[in-house]
């Protein structure tokens, strides 16, 4: 028997494959294609306090082996999310873990969003604190690239809710271990990484940036080696579970992240090309485990084979 369930401390998932925030809408958009119950978890698009327009268009550009996006966190706001049929009421009926990605323009907004979700937490498995979105300008503060601010956001949210907390780190820092330790000390239960990496593309005919916002976050296969290195560093620095993501497209990609120390993984950009990618990855992981005679994920999580001199 192969067991692919995973224990992330305060909560368990039936399998280690989740969808990355912002790439799977609020779940309902893909419900026509396959039963959402097959996923380990659904992570919804970032939720803040009030409805937000997001950025002007064009918001995306295709680049070699990846894409840039500057969606700018368009969303319904927390009240609509909790009560409109398309969002939480729909997700409550889906028999899998639901993780709500949250963001704010101030530390206080993060806390207020977390508190509202805590007050109506039925159906919510955990919160993922997005301190790393490169696409929101307001406030002018990058929470995810300042150790003190990152800690303040996490400890503020920690006080606002008893829900399990995942903190999503930014790749825009020189030391991932420092940030992993800081958010752990501030009370996060799990770490996830990486968010997109700021990039740029220019249309040489019009001489305009291909993204209205000038910069956009790079995602997809192009960032996988960077993401894998960062997951390896985070997992080596802290004992809390790490969720790995960044360019994962195949089961082989996912297995690399497990070997580097991730306890679970998220599939993002790959879903745009193939909505079935998460399911194919689950199947591929099982096949790998069978071939290697592994009975559970712990048999290979963090087991990258590095000779110690």
């Amino acid at each position, binding site marked *: 028997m192969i067991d692919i369930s995973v224990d992330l401390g305060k909560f368990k998932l039936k399998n280690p494959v989740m969808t990355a925030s912002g790439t799977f809408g609020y779940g309902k958009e893909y419900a*026509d294609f396959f039963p959402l119950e097959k996923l380990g978890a659904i992570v919804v698009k970032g939720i803040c306090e009030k409805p937000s327009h997001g950025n002007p268009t064009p*918001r995306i550009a*295709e680049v070699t082996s990846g894409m840039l996006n500057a969606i700018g966190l368009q969303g319904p706001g927390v009240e609509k999310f909790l009560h409109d049929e398309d969002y939480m009421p729909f997700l409550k009926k889906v028999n899998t873990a639901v993780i709500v990605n949250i963001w704010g323009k101030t530390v206080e907004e993060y806390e207020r969003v977390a508190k509202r979700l805590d007050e109506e937490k039925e159906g919510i498995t955990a919160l993922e604190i997005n301190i790393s979105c490169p696409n929101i300008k307001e406030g002018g503060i990058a929470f995810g690239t300042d150790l003190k601010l990152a800690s303040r956001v996490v400890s503020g949210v920690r006080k606002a809710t008893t829900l399990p907390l995942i903190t999503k780190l930014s790749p825009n820092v020189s030391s991932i271990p420092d940030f992993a330790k800081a958010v752990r000390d501030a009370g996060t239960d799990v770490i996830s990484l990486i968010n997109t990496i700021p990039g740029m593309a220019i249309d040489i005919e019009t001489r305009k940036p291909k993204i209205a916002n000038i910069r956009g976050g790079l995602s997809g296969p192009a960032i996988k080696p960077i993401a894998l290195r960062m997951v390896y560093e985070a997992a080596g620095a802290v004992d809390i579970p790490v969720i790995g993501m960044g360019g994962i497209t195949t089961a082989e990609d996912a297995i690399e992240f497990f070997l580097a120390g991730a306890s679970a993984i998220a599939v993002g950009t790959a879903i745009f090309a193939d*909505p079935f990618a998460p399911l194919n990855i689950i199947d591929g992981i099982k096949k790998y485990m069978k071939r290697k005679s592994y009975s559970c994920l712990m048999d290979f999580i963090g087991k990258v084979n590095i000779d110690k001199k």
Partner: protein
Amino acid sequence: MPIQEQGKIIRNAELQDSYRKLELYAPGICAETKAGQFVHMQISGLRDRILRRPFSISDVNKDGVLTIIYKVVGAGTEVLSTQEEGSTCSLLGPLGTPFSLPGKDEIPVIVAGGYGAAATYLLAKRAESKGVMLLGARSEKDLILTKEFSDIPFELRTATEDGSTGDKCLVTDLLETIIREKSAKKLRFYGCGPHGMLMAMGKILIENGLDGELSLDHLMCCGVGACFACVVKVKADNEDGWRYARTCKEGPVFNASSIYYE
């Protein structure tokens, strides 16, 4: 309900100039298709590019054959033009909000530019009352499906910017003429083409106290409403007076009166 289906290429041939006609065997999608919907295609053999490409469904038949008319404009369509009979590509579809068909007593007036003719062909074919097709392009070589529309039969009027055929004017000028000529009749307006043309068309309709259905196209990513890449401004009951709507889900067909004109 949209599905994922492997479409098998039956024919992929030049239509005219840089336009090509692609026929795919995709019975599952064909059975569900409504006029104005699109497929999101993964082009096999397109290396290092990760996104699907959206194409309007131009026609479907009961044998499960789906037709797309496409223009070669970049890397993806270039590779698509080399795909041979028998090869397959993954399709998601049918996607998007379709046109609503005109009633029996209404005359459909379609305004199209470029591949917009392809996107409105199924609408014209399925309309119970036959109508008028106003087709515009830069020059004669960009006017596609003229015979097909005439054969439905639709009354065809053409406009080219260089005057190489039809009237030397913009297709929206033809629209203004029709509105004057047929003001006594019950007309239903539909449009598909370049953004500028559609915005001009929307404004003309509204100025004349009319409405219509416009099919907008936009850069797309997921194609199913999940990523918010493809948004356009529509009127909304909030302090700004507008919100961003997803072209792939709430569109591509929008009422002219719902669009927020800047």
